């Protein structure tokens, strides 16, 4: 494994850990951004350039920002008075650890059955475009509708109810 993989992995995991462990919510959001970036690098490592840049553009540029906005809107930038972890956090941690154990065990068990690594296949945007429009046109349209609905829905849900809605 190359050094790029280790750095990216480290970045991702560190960012993820930070985002769930930090006390300040804004710090969590920013650490999340770091995790997304690390992930983008991992995608690039996997020869999925489009997915990597889409990750950056959507997640870092939109989702993370959104989260920050939400935090600010609910005035969560202050340090909370009481603890940030729930009273029964060991249970949650144990369950997460159990999941990891299971997945890890499955992966290592099947390591010998995996196919040999092949050289990367070149992917062009042209190919992706064509695939989207020809092969995966239906999901494309559905996602388009979904995004529209989500947009409108989010606006409606978060709207102030004071009679000024039109």
């Amino acid at each position, binding site marked *: *494994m190359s050094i790029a*993989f280790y750095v990216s992995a480290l970045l991702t*995991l560190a960012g*993820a850990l930070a*985002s*769930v462990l930090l006390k300040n*919510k804004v710090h*969590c*959001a920013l650490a999340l951004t770091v*995790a997304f970036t690390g992930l983008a690098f*991992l*995608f690039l490592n*996997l020869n*999925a350039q*489009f*997915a990597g840049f*889409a990750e950056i553009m*959507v997640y870092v540029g939109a*989702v993370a920002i*959104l*989260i920050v906005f*939400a935090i600010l*809107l*609910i005035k*969560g930038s202050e340090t*909370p008075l009481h603890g*940030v*972890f*729930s009273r029964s*956090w060991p249970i*949650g*941690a144990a*369950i*997460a*650890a159990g*999941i*990891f154990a299971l*997945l*890890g065990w499955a*992966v*290592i068990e099947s*390591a010998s059955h*995996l196919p040999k*690594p*092949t050289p990367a*296949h070149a*992917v062009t945007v042209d190919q*992706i475009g064509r695939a*989207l429009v020809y092969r*995966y046109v239906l999901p494309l349209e559905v*996602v388009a509708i*979904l*995004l529209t609905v*989500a*947009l409108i*829905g*989010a606006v409606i*849900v*978060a709207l*102030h109810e004071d009679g000024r809605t039109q």
Partner: protein
Amino acid sequence: MTPLTCYLLVAAFLFAIGLAGALIRRNAILVLIGIELMLNAANLNLIAFWRYGPHPELLTGMIFAIFSIAVAAAEAAVGLALVIHIHRHTKTTYLDQINRMKG
């Protein structure tokens, strides 16, 4: 240790971290952050399998990941809108107190 295995392990760890965050943190937004992390771990799995699996020329994994990103974005938007809405009504994002569904 094939590269695929390494990527898969990373994705598993990331998933576990995300789950832990969703289960442990008190704030609703932090739960959403955990969910985003879980989704991203799944994306990583998809891309990894696409790269090292059979028939990479079909672009199945890649397209799947792209759609997943799109849906995740929409879901994050709606989720955050809901959190804001709830905060306005209950003046708290402390999950333990939002138990109107208690039965």
